[in-house]
């Protein structure tokens, strides 16, 4: 019998417990508690967890929510732990409402959530969040994630609420604030995951709930005002805003990684994790470029930190996977697209701003740009960021065939094939195997690459690509960063764009000129640092504080760059000289001394930090400058001005960059004009040096390296032009300057056409295959090994070369494939010039038996390149050493060899002998009797006996690799009077260990080593060829590490001290950036300074809403 509805007992309303955790109560707490107390849901219990331990908070709770249950915790263990503790005390509730202390729900909110939870059979229900102060502005209406676990809101923060999202729908993530959770679900899930806080805990709870089959819905009818005060460590007010942002990012990212590691099935982890890590790297780079180093570091650390407490992580994963009832595929329909990462990242900027605004209200220091200049409006910023993103996409598109198909080994591009341990060993060794070998320290760049290889866990293929392509990101990022002084966000972005479209780096890449790429990456940073040291307007005084540390940092930057491009020591001086010249031209003598001292001190610091390597490099001008250019390769003035140092760039497009950079000259006033003068002077000095060096009027310097400061200066000048546009242009009467400004923008747009067009090839005109691939058919090195002697234009060789004659270089590889150490020229050439002398002898028709002369060096093949890469690789033709080729044709012991690639003329030496061999007795006398020549002529004249004798009877021993080796000397192979020969540069550090008996080397053929053997080897003898690195060098290398560590420590300490000076001291006065008044109305000339600012005029909000209510600038 059915119950009478009138007489039946009313259905009991399900009990709901609202849990509010108070950790850092603000002014909104009282209103929040009152709103929860005013809910119309009849069976609602309010449980307040007070973690503050503050009596005043207790009083406020008592006043606002006198009926609430209050749980006081002795210590703040975090929001998650607090909720879990509170929920554990509740019995009989069907649902929990988990609340922050900064939410104010409408009276019906809990009821609507519960009703919809029952109606939809939802395990979790989330309300609509609106802003605390503006209830018509949305904050969140549910959320979802992408494949990487990145949380993405379903509405735009700040979006006007017009009921456009007011429908119940299924979601993947319930944003924190006020969340209704079915109690049995919450207990099944074990509550919030421990170790999670911030945004991550909501993601974790929601994702796990989804996996057990629960439904998550958003109930927009339930509206909650949210003050968005973070309920995590971010709320600690004793921390700097930047630190708090970094902390928040770290917590969020760690939670995301742990959630992904916990919730995804393993086969999805295989692809999501690497992609996620790659994205994190990109994100970190962009953050660095934007000066948010703390967040960048947090982003990079998060993957590692997420692996802490691995046992707990594994337990959580096992639990989730055991209880999961839904596959990952089922989540896909609710997840966001792949573009959400970019969106989320860009959105983080606005969040950054929002946080800043929130805390401004509390009087917390607002993050500011180092310049006090108001930046562009959000709308314009979005457009410019979109432009930057588009440029990045073009860069990726243009590099697609490099990223997808590997990096060819051309020029000096680091070819990392060995493991990180091997790289470290190469750096630590006191014997450099490049050329004919030489004793001396390795370049510190090997150590840096070793660090990178170690950090990438030995993913050397990826590392090689990163080393080649990172300059394309780091360089423009430096231009962006360096232009911050001019106070124009628009200008900063234009600087980055300008630097990115300058042909320099693309030419360097196409030629495999890694020195050029390194210089391209470093030049804007160095320029920016030197500018900072000057403290000339508009560089704020605070920016130059802790001068010593800044010099040290700049020196480290110069040293690190020079380790890859030794001539960068000169480049840093070029920047300093340019700034001095520019100052003098501008009539400013006061900064000259500062520029001079800063530059000199920084270069000196760089030199000291890279000792002992730097000392060896400075002793060898050839190592600094590299092979010189031939007359055909010399750059004309027009080519220099347009950065046409290679195949990239053509026509007149690049002239337009100069035109755009000239805008600052015609518009700028005051400090803008002074800096325009300095930047143009830097560019002109750089242009001039590159041009003069190319013509032979100066010692040779790599054009791509020398021109890097010019590119950086012009990019900065473009930014300065943008600043002048914003500050100075309003002060001019309408005339040609307004047109010039427009023309400058058009010029820059047109100048980017070649950049976009060149992206079509997908590899920036770089050959698609390595030169050494053309030699793949040659036999592999057998006992003793052999060398290949490469000759040609340096760009066409797969390794660093030494000067043979103007325009041409030579280099050797052990076997056919260069090693990483071959990419870096040593300071001392060792005995390598002997090879040059032999080649010149053949070129000058001084011998027809070149093969005999090259035999002691183990040269089996001579390769002359006539293109930059193999056939079919998209390579371009290069000049040929015609005279040398004519000479090679006359050699009777060299045979042209068809390797199936017409881009390489290969000659096989029929008189070759292995690099390490047992000399026949007939050759021993010749070897040990030949004295070292003091000149090239004497050297080859001393080889006359060798030419008649030859080494064709020599037998290879001791393995087939470079450097130290161990092998056996079979009995009977070393008859009386024979000797073990080693075709390395003579050094007393080498010894041959014959089963305990050490044999010292004797000089052979004037430059190599021979080890006299016992009369007859009675049995198979184990022999070890060893090099003992001098202790002095070891000490210096260790000292190098210590000095670098000390420099880093000193810089860190100094930076902290500098930070203590206060942000205000690092912010330039806004007066410096005040736009000039229109003619007839203004009281000051544009850009000039008032002696005594009468007032601080906040710019009109309608002009730029980035200004805060107190007139200060909120930087991103």
């Amino acid at each position, binding site marked *: 019998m059915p119950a009478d509805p009138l007489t039946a007992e009313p259905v009991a309303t399900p009990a709901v417990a609202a849990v509010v955790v108070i950790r850092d109560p603000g002014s909104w707490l009282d209103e929040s508690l009152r709103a929860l107390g005013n809910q119309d849901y009849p069976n609602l219990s309010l449980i307040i967890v007070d973690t503050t331990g503050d009596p005043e908070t207790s009083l406020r709770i008592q006043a606002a929510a006198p009926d609430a249950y209050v749980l006081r915790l002795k210590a703040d263990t975090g929001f998650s732990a607090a909720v879990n503790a509170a929920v554990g005390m509740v019995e009989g509730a069907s649902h929990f409402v988990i609340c922050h202390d900064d939410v104010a729900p409408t009276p019906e909110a809990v009821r609507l959530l519960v009703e919809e939870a029952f109606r939809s059979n939802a395990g979790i229900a989330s309300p609509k969040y609106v802003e605390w102060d503006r209830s018509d502005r949305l904050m969140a209406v549910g959320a979802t994630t992408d494949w990487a676990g990145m949380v993405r809101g379903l509405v735009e923060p700040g979006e006007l609420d017009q009921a456009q999202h007011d429908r119940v729908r299924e979601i993947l993530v319930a944003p924190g604030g006020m969340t209704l959770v079915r109690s049995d679900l919450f207990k099944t899930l074990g509550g919030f995951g421990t170790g999670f806080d911030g945004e991550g805990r909501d993601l974790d709870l929601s994702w796990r709930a989804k996996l057990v089959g629960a439904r998550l819905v958003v109930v927009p009818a339930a509206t909650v005002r949210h003050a968005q005060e973070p309920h995590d460590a971010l709320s600690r007010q004793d921390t700097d805003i930047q630190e708090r942002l970094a902390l928040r990012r770290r917590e969020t990212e760690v939670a995301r990684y742990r959630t992904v590691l916990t919730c995804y099935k393993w086969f999805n982890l295989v692809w999501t994790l690497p992609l996620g890590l790659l994205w994190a790297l990109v994100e970190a780079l962009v953050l660095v470029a934007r000066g948010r180093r703390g967040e960048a570091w947090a982003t990079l650390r998060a993957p590692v930190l997420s692996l802490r407490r691995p046992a707990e992580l594994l337990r959580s994963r096992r639990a989730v996977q055991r209880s999961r009832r839904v596959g990952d595929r089922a989540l896909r329909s609710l997840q966001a697209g792949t573009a959400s990462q970019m969106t989320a990242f860009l959105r983080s900027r606005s969040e950054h701003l929002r946080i800043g605004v929130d805390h401004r209200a509390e009087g917390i220091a607002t993050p500011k740009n180092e310049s006090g200049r108001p930046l562009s409006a959000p709308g314009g910023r979005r457009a410019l960021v979109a432009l930057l993103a588009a440029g990045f996409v073009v860069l990726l598109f243009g590099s697609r065939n490099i990223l997808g198909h590997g990096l060819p080994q051309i020029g000096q591009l680091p070819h990392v094939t060995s493991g990180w341990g091997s790289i470290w060993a190469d750096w630590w060794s006191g014997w450099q195997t490049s050329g004919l070998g030489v004793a001396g320290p390795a370049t510190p760049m090997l150590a840096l690459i070793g660090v990178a290889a170690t950090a990438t866990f030995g993913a050397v293929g990826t590392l090689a690509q990163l080393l080649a392509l990172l300059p394309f990101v780091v360089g423009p990022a430096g231009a962006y960063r360096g232009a911050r002084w001019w106070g124009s966000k628009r200008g900063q972005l234009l600087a980055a764009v300008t630097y990115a479209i300058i042909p320099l780096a693309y030419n360097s890449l196409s030629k495999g000129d890694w020195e050029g790429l390194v210089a391209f990456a470093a030049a804007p940073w160095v320029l920016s640092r030197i500018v900072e040291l000057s403290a000339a307007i508009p560089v704020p005084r605070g920016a130059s504080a802790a001068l010593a540390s800044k010099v040290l940092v700049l020196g480290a930057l110069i040293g690190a760059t020079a380790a890859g491009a030794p001539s960068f020591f000169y480049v840093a001086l070029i920047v300093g000289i340019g700034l001095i010249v520019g100052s003098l*031209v501008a009539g400013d003598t006061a900064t000259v001394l500062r520029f001079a001292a800063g530059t000199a001190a920084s270069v000196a610091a760089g030199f000291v930090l890279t000792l002992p390597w730097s000392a060896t490099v400075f002793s060898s001008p050839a190592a600094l400058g590299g092979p010189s250019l031939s007359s055909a390769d010399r750059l004309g003035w027009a080519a220099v001005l347009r950065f046409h140092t290679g195949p990239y760039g053509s026509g007149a497009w690049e002239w337009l960059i100069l035109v755009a950079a000239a805008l600052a000259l015609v518009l700028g006033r005051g400090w803008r004009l002074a800096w325009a003068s300095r930047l143009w*002077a830097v560019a002109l000095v750089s242009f001039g040096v590159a041009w003069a060096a190319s013509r032979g009027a100066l010692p040779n310097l790599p054009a791509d390296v020398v021109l890097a400061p010019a590119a950086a200066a012009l990019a900065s000048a473009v930014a300065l032009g943008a600043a002048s546009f914003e500050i100075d242009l309003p002060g001019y009467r309408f005339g040609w300057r307004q047109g010039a400004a427009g023309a400058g923008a058009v010029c820059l747009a047109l100048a980017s056409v070649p950049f976009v067009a060149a992206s079509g090839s997908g590899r920036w005109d770089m050959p698609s295959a390595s030169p050494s691939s053309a030699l793949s058919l040659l036999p592999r090195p057998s006992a003793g090994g052999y060398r290949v002697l490469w000759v040609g234009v340096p760009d066409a060789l797969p390794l660093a070369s030494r000067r043979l004659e103007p325009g041409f270089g030579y280099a050797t590889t052990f076997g056919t494939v260069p090693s990483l150490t071959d990419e870096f020229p040593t300071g001392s050439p060792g005995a390598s010039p002997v090879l040059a002398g032999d080649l010149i002898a053949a070129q000058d028709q001084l011998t027809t038996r070149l093969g005999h002369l090259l035999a002691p060096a183990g040269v089996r093949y001579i390769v002359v390149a006539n293109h930059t890469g193999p056939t079919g690789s998209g390579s371009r*033709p290069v000049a040929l050493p015609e005279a040398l080729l004519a000479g090679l044709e006359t050699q009777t012991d060299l045979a042209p060899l068809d390797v199936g690639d017409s881009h390489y003329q290969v000659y096989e030496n029929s008189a070759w002998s292995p690099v390490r061999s047992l000399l026949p007795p007939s050759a021993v006398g010749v070897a040990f009797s030949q004295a070292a020549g003091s000149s090239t002529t004497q050297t080859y004249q001393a080889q006359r006996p060798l030419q008649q004798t030859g080494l064709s009877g020599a037998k290879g021993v001791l393995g087939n690799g470079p450097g130290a080796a161990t092998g056996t000397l079979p009995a009977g192979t070393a008859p009386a009077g024979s000797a073990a020969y080693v075709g390395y540069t003579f050094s007393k550090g080498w010894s041959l260990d014959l089963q305990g008996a050490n044999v010292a080397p004797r000089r052979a053929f004037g430059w190599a080593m021979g080890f006299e053997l016992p009369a007859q080897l009675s049995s198979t003898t184990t022999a070890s060829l060893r090099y003992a690195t001098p202790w002095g060098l070891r000490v210096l290398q260790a000292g190098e590490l210590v000095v670098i560590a000390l420099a880093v420590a000193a810089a860190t300490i100094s930076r902290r001290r500098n930070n203590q000076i206060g942000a205000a001291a690092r912010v330039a006065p806004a007066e410096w950036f005040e736009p000039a008044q229109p003619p007839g109305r203004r009281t000051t000339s544009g850009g000039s300074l008032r002696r005594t600012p009468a007032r601080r005029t906040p710019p009109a909000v309608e002009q730029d809403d980035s200004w805060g209510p107190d007139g200060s600038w909120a930087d991103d």
Partner: protein
Amino acid sequence: MTDDAPDDTPEGPDEVPGGPTAGLQEDRLPGGDKGAPKSSDGLRRLRVVSFVVGVLVVLGLVDHSASRPATHSGQSGGVQISPTAAPAAALSSSWFCAGATSSAQGAAPTTTTATTTTTTAATSTAAKASGVAPGAPASSVNPAGDASGQVVIANAGSLEAKATVSVVGSAGTPDIKTMDVPARGSVSVPEVAAGGGGWAGAIVEADAGQVVVYQSVSGPLGASVSPCATSGSPTWYLPGGQTRVNADEYISLLNPYPTSTIVDLSFVTNQGSEQPQNFQGIDVPADGLATVDLGSYLSRRSSIETIVKARTGSVVAWETEVVTPPPSGAPLVGSAAASKPLADPAWPTAGVTVTLGSPGAATSWSWPDGLAGNNLQEQYVVFNPGSVQAKVRLSIGIAGAAAEPFDFSVGPGQVVPVVSEQQARIPAGVAHTATLTSTNNVPVVAVRTLTASGAAIPVSGVTGTVSGNGQILGETASAGSWLVAATGLDSHHVGELVVYNPGATTVTARVTALSGGPAPALPNGGALTIAPGGQASLAATSAASGPLQVTASSAVFVEYDLYGVGGTGGIGLSPAVPLSNH
């Protein structure tokens, strides 16, 4: 500037001109911009812009005055066309000779001095097989012993040199001899190939510079001398050949390198471009020789330009033309009977010519000597082996004056002969020089041929007539010092050394004979004076049969011509070899 002039002027009492130099900054920034002059932005802008524009313009003007950079083709253009002696400081030098027939067995080297000559026979570790591909028309038979060869090694240096001569035959192993070459003397080594008759070549390696090697051939049909090659090349051009009822053409391919080579031959004949299958894929073994008889597949060609291309490696290519006396009753080339449809004309003059090919084309060729008319038929044959039409100019110099040059075009793969007798601008019986220049820089190959049919010997002071055929490639580079290693002089031959001065000033030259001892007397003491653009010659007789060295005060071209007298006949035209100055 009028629109902004007022704006650049400071206004108001609270302003300080110069922007960054002012007020607030002076208090705040150490150093700051205090030192800036208190000038207006206008003046400062003028100074800055002037500086920038000035630097740009000045360096632009300086750069403009310099030569323009060249572009790269990726192709080697550095082929050395003519043999050149190695410098005195050289550790070694090598010469490659071929195209001769093996001399009689047992002939011994001879020297111009009493220096001991050592002869050692050695054998190569590897047997050298005949280097002709299966089916190729190998020519291993001595063509009537018409061109017995010997190499003449001259040492212009001041120190004795050691030379190793490897005589390579069509079959068998190389015969290696080592000998000393006296300072300023010479050594002759007969080319006796192992296995007796057939073709022979020689690889000469000396341990010094300033050594020049010639190949001298002689036989019943006449004598010829020619410098040997100093380098191999993957490509050779051999213009000026023919095959007739009484004329045979042979191409000798010498591979002096340690690996074997495959060679293809192609031809431009009077019947067009030809590539007979049997002349493709000719195997030339390492240190081996291969000779092919063109007449076996290219018979009755009045003109043959041969192109040698090695698929891999390099070779040295020689051309040997053997013309026997015309058969009785055969129509002769140039006669009316020869123009009949079925006529098989014979070449009217017997003779033997051995010519080193050209490893490349060039844009300029010079001939110090030229003569036409009076039973001397001279022609310049220009061959364009490239793919672009060449526009060339043939300039004739007569007694220091210049005739109106001949301008003509040579299409790709075409041959254009210029017959001197048919040109009114080339007077008969007057010696002349000739220079061929490609006006559009398209390289060509040019050869001068000379046929004498009872012509008076064109050597001053020598009477008699000469008959024979000669051929000489032009010279491509002038030099101040030259050497003719083999003069071929004996009682039946006279020679003439011709020096051409291409410069604009008078040149004095001295000719000395290298005898290894006291210098033999030469006419006028060997002194020559050459007017600008003119030529001078020196008659050489058997009294000074050693090598001849020419030292000029400026760069000249030198040619040596050999004429048979006393019924021996024969003409040998050869370029001298420039000696390196360093």
